């Protein structure tokens, strides 16, 4: 599990899984998808174990894998991948998220299941490639490739207003990535002007671009930042999110909130901050403020939401605001804490959406005003949901606490005001998440849906295993968050 | 009168190519359109052979062989399409197959 073979292995195995899915019978697609993604998850953990579980961060550095292939050498385009402590975690997360997303049940396994499963594996491939990319063009291509399966997800298996959702998703994402592409070309030509050579590899560009005058870096930085701000999303670039989340099929929502949003996080960690340190430093105040406003603004919207998926969508924005707060505190500690919190958010939101999906299967909808009192019928389901809610309000002892706490701790040193503002999101988080749980699970069971609800059963054994796995990660991460912080 | 020079053939090639293109744009009869395409392909072939001569290589000739193969395949498939269309629409007019517009 050393050198570059593990890298190519990790990249190709989802593609292989995708190809195999074409020959699996339709009836077995779900089983295949679950086992396949579980296998990939296991293999990913195995392959990255050297980086993640070695005793010291120095020892872990031995396992860093950097790979670079020439592609269009005249234009300096290469394919570059790098496996390190950060990308390893995101690889595992994307495999885990894929497993969770595949574990759902629904129309996507009835209508064109083969397309669904192969798109899921392709998404995994694209995500992995984006998380590993160290080359601008490679990153851009993977970043765009992620978009293809998502369009299918929303477009083919989406809910009522999928057309408009797809349109918005496309519009916003595309606007962002075009800006990023322009910015990429700009910094590539800056590199060319300085060295006379074309290169799109981060290692080459890092030698030139960060030292360029601040004025010339402002616009490229804005291009990158906007792309990622839309992806994450940060307020006010979140306009697409609600409609897309609500209209996407549940696996799509899981992917989007748990792992697609992390593309933006990784982008900021890997490109925006290292490439434009001076610009970011200069605008640190506004950036912190935007992050803090995201936290509060989305939390307030979540308070007003009357539907489960919408509420969780907004809560996702709110939590990612914390992540960005950590990143923009511009310290190594802050960005490590941001990574930790992203891991926490990914696991938690995958779990929340997965369990919400289970609730939806049983009660027919997750409208907070009508469905209630379900907890007594489904004890394990709602116990899992409650733990997810607790993790989401980042109670100490859960994975999210370490991240949120350390983010705020480090952000406090950068800006006390923004931190205090963001920290009020902790209160608002408790308000909306408890309301969410109360409306769904507690109270007197409504007579309307109770009759047909009582027939259906609690979590199936397989789903229970899934929940136990996620709860295990959440609790273990709460006890030993250090494991997620070797960068 | 100047001596024969290969570039003269290039001019002929350009002229024939443009005529073929014009036919492709103007005519609506699919069979004639296919013929126009053949004209264009021939013009390109002439180009290849001429360049081959100018560069003192044989690669151009080889390419022409392949282009001919493609042309044969193309006209076979194209005419097959025309037949299929004629069977459905009773016409070989390209305006009849405006499906691309929504």
């Amino acid at each position: 599990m050393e050198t570059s073979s593990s890298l190519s292995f990790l990249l190709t195995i989802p593609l292989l899984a995708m190809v195999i899915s074409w020959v699996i019978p339709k009836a077995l697609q779900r089983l295949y998808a679950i086992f396949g993604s579980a296998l990939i998850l296991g293999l990913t953990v195995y392959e990255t174990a050297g980086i993640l579980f070695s005793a010291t961060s120095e020892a872990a550095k031995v396992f860093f894998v950097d790979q670079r292939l020439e592609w269009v050498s005249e234009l300096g385009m290469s394919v570059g991948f790098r496996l390190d402590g950060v990308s390893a975690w995101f690889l595992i997360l994307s495999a885990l998220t894929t497993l969770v997303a595949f574990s759902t049940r629904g129309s996507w396994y009835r209508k064109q299941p083969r397309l669904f499963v192969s798109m899921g594996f392709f998404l995994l491939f694209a995500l992995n490639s984006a998380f590993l990319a160290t080359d601008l063009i490679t990153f851009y291509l993977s970043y765009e490739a992620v978009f293809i399966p998502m369009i299918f997800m929303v477009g083919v298996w989406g809910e009522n207003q999928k057309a408009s959702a797809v349109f918005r998703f496309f519009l916003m994402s595309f606007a962002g990535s075009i800006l990023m592409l322009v910015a990429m070309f700009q910094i590539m030509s800056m590199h060319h002007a300085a060295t006379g050579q074309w290169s799109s590899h981060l290692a080459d560009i890092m030698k030139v671009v960060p030292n360029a005058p601040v004025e010339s870096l402002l616009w490229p930085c804005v291009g990158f930042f906007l792309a990622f701000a839309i992806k994450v999303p940060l307020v006010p670039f979140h306009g697409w999110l609600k409609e897309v989340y609500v209209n996407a099929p549940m696996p799509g929502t899981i992917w989007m909130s748990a792992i697609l949003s992390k593309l933006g996080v990784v982008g900021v960690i890997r490109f925006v901050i290292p490439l434009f340190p001076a610009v970011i430093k200069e605008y640190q105040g506004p950036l912190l403020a935007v992050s803090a406003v995201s936290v509060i603004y989305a939390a307030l919207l979540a308070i007003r939401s009357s539907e489960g998926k919408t509420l969780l969508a907004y809560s996702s924005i709110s939590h990612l605001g914390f992540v960005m707060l950590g990143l923009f505190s511009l310290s190594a500690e802050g960005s490590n804490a941001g990574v930790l919190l992203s891991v926490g958010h990914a696991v938690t939101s995958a779990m929340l959406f997965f369990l919400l999906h289970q609730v939806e299967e049983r009660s027919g909808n997750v409208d907070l005003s009508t469905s209630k009192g379900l907890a007594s019928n489904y004890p394990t389901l709602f116990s899992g949901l409650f733990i997810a809610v607790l993790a989401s309000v980042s109670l100490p002892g859960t994975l999210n606490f370490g991240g949120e706490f350390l983010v705020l701790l480090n952000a406090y040193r950068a800006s006390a005001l923004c931190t205090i503002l963001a920290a009020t999101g902790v209160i608002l988080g408790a308000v909306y998440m408890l309301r969410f749980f109360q409306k769904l699970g507690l109270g007197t069971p409504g007579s309307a849906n109770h009759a047909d609800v009582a027939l259906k059963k609690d979590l199936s054994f397989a789903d229970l295993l899934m929940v136990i796995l996620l709860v295990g990660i959440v609790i273990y991460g709460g006890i030993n968050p250090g494991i997620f912080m070797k960068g | 009168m100047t001596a024969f020079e290969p570039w003269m053939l290039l001019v002929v090639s350009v002229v024939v190519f443009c005529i073929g293109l014009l036919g492709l744009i103007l005519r609506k009869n699919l069979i004639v359109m296919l013929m126009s395409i053949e004209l264009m392909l021939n013009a390109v072939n002439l180009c290849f052979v001429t360049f081959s001569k100018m560069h003192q290589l044989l690669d151009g000739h080889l390419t022409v062989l392949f282009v001919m193969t493609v042309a044969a395949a193309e006209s076979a498939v194209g005419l097959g399409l025309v037949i299929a269309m004629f069977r459905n629409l009773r016409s070989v007019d390209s305006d009849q197959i405006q499906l691309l517009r929504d």
Partner: protein
Amino acid sequence: MITSMILFPLAGFIINGFWTLWAARNGSRVSSRVSGAIATSAMLAAFVSAWLARSQLPASGSTEVEIFRWFTLGSLSVDFKLRLDALSSLFTLVITGVGALIHLYSVSYMEEDEGAGKYFAYLNLFCFMMLNLVLGGTLPQVFLGWEGVGLASYLLIGFWYREEANVSAGQKAFVMNRIGDLGFLIAMFIGYKYSGSLDLATIEKVVLPAGVGTSFVLLVFLACTGKSAQIPLFTWLPDAMAGPTPVSALIHAATMVTSGVYLLARLSPVISQSTTGMTVIAGIGAATALITAIIACFQSDIKKVLAYSTVSQLGFMFVACGVGAFGAGVFHVMTHAFFKALLFLGAGSVIHGLHGEQDIFKMGGLKKKLPVTFWTFTAGWAAILGMPPFSGFFSKDEILHQALVSGSGSVILFSVLLIAATLTAFYMTRLYWLVFFGGPRMDKSKFDHAHESPVAMALPLVVLGLLSLAGGFAGEPVHLPHPEAVRSTPAWIIMVVSVLAAAVGATIAYRRYSAGAVSPEAARDVFRIDSIYSSLFGGGLKATASATQWLEERVVQGLIRLVAAITDLSGNMIRVLQVGSAQAYLLMMIIGLVVMVIYFLKGVAQYGNF
């Protein structure tokens, strides 16, 4: 020993929790006796551990047990470690001791309830978290306990979750506590910024700049007002009575609500640096003591009276802390834990005996029916009144004394507390009399069916009764630095005054409620604080959220729609060109090609060749 102290409740929680969950999944029920026995023995074992740990405690200082490294980041590393010293040892004894008694009591109290397994799991979880709070060697660990007890409290208040009101009460408690937690968090950030560590041992020694010090103290105190139900965050505690009565006794009287006092005592070296902060603490404490004592006089629900009484007594403790007499505050925590737990359990016994009746105006004459409850309740009553030699007398007297003589004390503070003490005597006597004396004011059948509680419930009452009686002789259990006395008032004068005040209050209540028929009084919301809060903050939050939603829908979504419309429009314009004829497309392509070729030829022309 220290580790096993927290492991026992954790084990109890895990066993009961999983068992209950498993049973619920299979549609069966957990035996309340067995799960109760597990939970109670876990607490007993914890109590023994706590006792042993105390006996092994070195005479001076503390022992620390490092369990594992919690997290490391840059220069910060936070261990998960337990730290036992005199202060935390006292708290562990109270938590495990009173906790064990209340567990025992619950076995019988919750026997009929189908959620007993869940109940005991939560109760053990609470004790685990509470022990973490008092044993935590680092601030994040204290915070873990701090939030953890909030969680357990939320779960137990909303224990009967089918009633919306219960759940809402739990939610209110959790959210108000979270407001306080925010203060805790930010205080931690300040502490870290100035000391570079989150270890309690380091934070205790840190010297903060004046302004920062005050904000640190106020933030910590904000946390305390949340957890210990002081003004302005006290309104959740009366609502928290929605939970089962033993829960009210354990969490909302004896242990959790006193963690604010623990925190102040723990951080006393830092807290005492800020005079402003101390004054605020004392002032708020006194105001809380008085205001909630007044409110308590107008309540008719037996548990609500006790709840307001708890808030009021906590006010006393904060005054003690505010004047620098942390030791007196902690002393009162201990005695209060005994007698308030006793009173709550007694109330529980009454409610249990009357099958759920909680209105004191529908009780009366229970002295004969519930003899054990009556006698133990009497001990609790005497203790809260401050009658010598009951435990409350010693601690309350100490607080009154310090409020008068210490440097930051004053006559005003003293008088406020004295009035509060008088009112305490009034409402407690009112409660006591209406419950146990006079003629029965409930249905005859109900009165006839009233029964004394079984042994499992009576035993804790007796033990706590004895502790309320004798607990005060232990004296101040922890020796924390005392403030210097600036006024010399003989201690005996204060004693006499305080006993007299209590006697006056009791007499007024006696005269008012003993004579003949008692007309029922409906509970009166004297200060309307709750409704003011809900319209101010609830309404405020709602309005802000609505404004945000408006912004979102009109502006942000409008912006998106605008972009979409523009794209649509330009799409339409381009569509005009989409004539649908492949040949027309070809033509356009050629035009484009020509333009491009000309453009590029021009560009290449300057190089002379192509």
